[in-house]
């Protein structure tokens, strides 16, 4: 029986990128459907009536929503190769803890970077650096957050790498100067085809945000 896998996503969504990377890691064939978030499709609204957001994975007609939940679902269903979560319950708990941390902190500051200026922007910048430094500390000297192998936390954070150029340009700072090990980690991840094929072009992301700011009169 052929599996039908559809992904409702938006090209610049750091959360959508998590799912793309996970699907690529597992070698799962799927149909990608780009969503216009300014004009949400009937399919998106039907498949995610509660949040009306991307990403949504539709597996044999059944929708799964929320990126961290989708990645875990993918790992549990396609469990024959490329494990994304550790097998040890304690290590799994640590991985879930850090993805939860990324969920709680990164989306909010990311949004505030482009919507604020002056003192407010300076404050957001400091927060971004603080969160990234904490994550860099957690990475330590390991090649990946998962240790020797790329896993759940790496997937959880890597999509935001395509937004770093936008944060740096708008905030006028260098993430590499603040967190060199984290950038080394990101570049290491980008050497994986599953990552490089899934992430958005950072310059395109910046141009997109520039456009939004102009449209909203936030320049």
């Amino acid at each position: 029986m052929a599996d039908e896998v559809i992904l409702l996503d938006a090209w610049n969504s750091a959360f959508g990128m998590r799912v793309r990377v996970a699907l690529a890691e597992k070698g799962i064939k799927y149909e990608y459907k780009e969503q216009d978030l300014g004009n949400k499709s009937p399919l998106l609204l039907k498949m995610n009536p509660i949040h009306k957001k991307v990403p949504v994975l539709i597996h044999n007609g059944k929708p799964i929503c929320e990126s961290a939940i989708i990645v875990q679902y993918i790992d549990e269903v396609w469990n024959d190769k490329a494990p994304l979560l550790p097998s040890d319950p304690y290590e799994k708990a640590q991985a879930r803890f850090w993805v939860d941390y990324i969920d709680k902190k990164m989306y909010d500051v990311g949004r505030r970077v482009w919507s604020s200026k002056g003192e407010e922007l300076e404050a957001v910048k400091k927060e971004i650096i603080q969160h990234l430094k904490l994550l860099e500390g957690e990475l330590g000297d390991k090649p990946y957050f998962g240790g020797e192998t790329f896993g759940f936390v790496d997937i959880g954070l890597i999509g935001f790498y395509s937004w770093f150029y936008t944060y740096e340009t708008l905030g006028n700072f260098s993430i590499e100067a603040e967190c060199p090990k984290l950038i080394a980690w990101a570049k290491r991840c980008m050497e994986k085809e599953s990552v490089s094929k899934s992430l958005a072009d950072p310059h395109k992301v910046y141009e997109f945000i520039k456009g939004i700011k102009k449209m909203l009169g936030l320049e």
Partner: protein
Amino acid sequence: MAEEVKLFGALESPFSCRVVIALKMKGVQYEYIEEDLPHKSPLLLKYNPVHKKIPVLLHNGKPICESLVILEYIDETWKGTPIFPQDPSDRATARFWAQFLEQKCLPTLWKACCWKGEGQEKAKEEAYELMKMLDNELEGKRFFGGDTIGLVDIVGNFIGFWYGIVQEITGVELWTKEKFPRLCEWIDEFVKCTIVKENLPPREKLLAYFRTRLRGAAASK
């Protein structure tokens, strides 16, 4: 091999209570350490340096933080009554509703009950929408978990018990049997459920706690 399980919690916290319920469901023996939240212990700060919050589960010296993460850890570590569904699709659904309760319902209910003015009215409208979604999800079910309580019921404990008390104090009424019949029935079933009933904090303590807290909140909002 002797197992050492400790829980750093607080009586008034629904997050802490979730972990107690889960441990009791699994029949796990543990030592409970009550934290005085305005004066957090050095041990708590050592075991949860990132968020500095309860609950923290300590299993053979290793800390696990964040109640939803802890619940999943408990389910994976100890056999017995399952907390999460077995099927991956059902598991994803349970995780979805748990997250919905935690990230959307919790902050909205607080604003709806405890804020004043325009912000409160908007929060109330949002709260009604969220309660409707929960009410619909309960169709044909006694509990979110089906015939017996599961993850979503446990995570929803703040609706089942805490918010009844908050509404009593603030005079805000977010749910009635007319508006959300299934949700109200669930609340009744939830607090009657033995494993829950035996592990909820005493009503008078929660009433006193929220009265103090809301007096402070009223002063600032």
